[in-house]
């Protein structure tokens, strides 16, 4: 069965064309005036380097390796994230952690090397899902650019400090000394 396409018949008013043109010009004029009177900060355009978009909740951006309040790493080098990673961009080497302190929760393992190749990473967030210690977060920074490939290979200290400036926290490095541990007392209760 053939489908009858109904042809649009313009009314004589529409066929005059000029009222429609004037209407259209009124619309564009309205937009012009509205845009002209809107201060730059309230326009639709986000002028990028000066203005930045607030990323939505759940946005998966640059990783951060979380740390305890005293600055020691939360990661226990369990390799869960490395296994979960579909892009295989995480490289971990574990080490024994002799200088146990209180906040570590008496874990004896920590990453010696924790590398993420940001060029390989697909920001899927599987590592965050897999982590039993909540030690790796994908947060809202998306400004990843570098002049060479090597500098996008983030190491353990890079990953711990990715949000140090944003959060106003001290930048951690290998040389930072941890505060003296409180006396250990294994026999409790």
């Amino acid at each position, binding site marked *: 069965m053939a489908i009858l396409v109904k042809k649009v018949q313009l009314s004589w008013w529409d066929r005059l064309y000029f009222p429609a*043109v004037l209407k259209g010009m009124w619309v*564009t004029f309205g937009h012009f005036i509205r845009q002209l009177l809107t201060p730059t900060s309230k326009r639709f355009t986000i002028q990028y380097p000066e203005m930045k978009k607030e990323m939505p909740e759940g946005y998966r951006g640059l990783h951060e390796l979380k740390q305890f309040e005293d600055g020691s790493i939360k990661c226990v080098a369990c390799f869960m994230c490395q296994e979960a990673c579909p892009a295989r961009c995480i490289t971990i080497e574990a080490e024994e952690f002799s200088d146990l302190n209180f906040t570590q929760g008496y874990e004896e393992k920590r990453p010696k090397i924790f590398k993420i190749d940001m060029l390989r990473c697909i920001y899927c967030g599987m590592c965050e899902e897999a982590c039993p210690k909540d030690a790796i977060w994908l947060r809202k920074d998306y400004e990843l650019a570098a002049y060479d490939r090597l500098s996008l290979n983030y190491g353990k200290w890079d990953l711990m400090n990715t949000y140090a400036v944003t959060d106003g926290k001290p930048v951690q490095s290998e040389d930072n000394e941890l505060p003296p541990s409180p006396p250990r007392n294994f026999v409790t209760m």
Partner: protein
Amino acid sequence: MILGILSLAPELSWMLIKVLVCIGFLMLLAPPLTWVERRGSAMIQDRIGPNRAALFGKIKILGLAHVLADGLKFFFKEDLIPKDANRALFWIAPALAFIPALLGFAVIPVGRSFELEGTTYHLSLIDPNNGMGLLYPLAIGGLAVYGVLVAAWSSNNKWSILGGMRASAQMVSYELGLGLSVIALFVTVGGYDPHQVILDQVQHGWYLWRQPLGFLVFFVCQFAETNRLPFDFAEGESEIVAGFHTEFGSMKFGLMGLAEYVHIIVASALIVTLYLGGWSIPFSRDGDSWPVLATVASFLAKLLFLCWVFVWVRWTLPRFRYDQLMHIGWKIMFPLSLINLVVNAWWLTR
């Protein structure tokens, strides 16, 4: 000092001043018009528009630095001529587009004529009663076709020639409606001298109100003559790249672009003179007591507003199809202008 020079050799020096001021004005107004076009279109489309270029890396002045940057870029770009282009015509084409656009302004009076020490000074390049009057800009406007067509032909490029052919067909078709609607006006005035036309409007009111139909036809046809949207058949980037100036680069392209904007200014000046009362000041009939500068300001205000309307319309209406264009030109604008002429002629002989 100007008055001193004037008293020495009034005619020559006054002519020199007028030429310099007029050409300087057209050349200086065209680049800011590109800025108005870009920023205005941005505002109309809820964008921000070019605002990044900065003088010395600091002074941005609302993106006006882009105008300078554009000009500078045009000067320093490589001047490329396609291998199979007709070199001579390719060189002439930008001038052919630019000069007729510039010439049309010559008879337009920008202000009231005034007397100084027994000499009458007219604020138009060519004095009144020269015998060609407002027929001159219309004739020169007809020459603009050659700029487009020669540019298209010399490029030896299919897109260019398509654009050029379309544009020339369009300009020739719309010249008809343009001429006929103006004839109705000339018949009513009883002459075609711009000063006469303006004085008539000072006494009896603007032709915009007295011949609205003529104004409408003239206005639409001016859009076609200047090759602006919704009649930009010379270009049409969605189908034939950049049309007639596809092959043009560097300052040649710059000159073509400048020609378009000068054309807009001259077309606006024509419309102002013919239908908006020229330099006359609205709501006032006392033509002889107006200060000269006030009349110039009045003319400029009308001119700039019309230039803005050209930009405004461009960013409001989409382009016509070619058959629609021909339909409008021959079956609507031409009969309308004829009706306008006949009705006005009847009104006069009544």
